[in-house]
């Protein structure tokens, strides 16, 4: 079974600084997707960024970027120029390739990010 590990239960960052959230996963599959979801206090799950395992290029979305190391099964999230609105729980998630059938997300336990003004 696939597992996702987030080793940092809590992180903090100064406003305007950069922070990196760690995520490792375990799978025997070669094709899969990886995601970072943000959950603010409103509890809405918001997709931050996604990465297809077959793509070597790291995904970026504005201030958010990932460092995807497939061999190491590592998928870290870097937030640049942190803003107060970035404060939230961040979940790393894995999903087997869709061609394998309907596959749910497997989540890590989350990292609570605080942004200090």
């Amino acid at each position: 079974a696939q597992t996702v590990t987030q080793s940092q239960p809590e992180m903090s960052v100064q406003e305007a600084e950069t922070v990196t959230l760690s995520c490792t996963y375990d799978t025997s599959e070669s094709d899969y997707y990886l995601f970072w979801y943000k959950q603010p206090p409103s509890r809405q799950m918001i997709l931050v960024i996604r990465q297809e395992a077959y793509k070597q290029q790291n995904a970026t979305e504005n201030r958010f970027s990932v460092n995807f190391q497939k061999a190491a099964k590592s998928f870290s999230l870097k937030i640049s120029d942190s803003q107060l609105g970035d404060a939230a729980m961040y979940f790393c998630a894995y999903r087997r390739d869709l061609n394998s059938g309907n596959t749910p997300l497997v989540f890590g336990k989350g990292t609570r990010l605080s942004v200090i003004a």
Partner: protein
Amino acid sequence: DTAVSQTPKYLVTQMGNDKSIKCEQNLGHDTMYWYKQDSKKFLKIMFSYNNKELIINETVPNRFSPKSPDKAHLNLHINSLELGDSAVYFCASSLHLRDLLGGEQFFGPGTRLTVL
């Protein structure tokens, strides 16, 4: 314009009662899911439906019964509620086929269930 909606958003009830949570998506997706988020914020899949057919049923008590009247709806009925059922329940949807969305799942706002 809500993509995935859930009702109710809050549900407070007594132990032993039966309750339902409704979910609807207007995205034209063919796969819907129920996830449970416990008090420690851990999210875990409960059920998955594709075109009204149950695909995934994780280790969930028989008191939980999903029902999908059509592709756009997936309801969750819970019998004989227990204290341990208190959690936030999220509905989500996605497209089965590989598409430009890259396997993204769209989540509803969640239903916070409190069993007293």
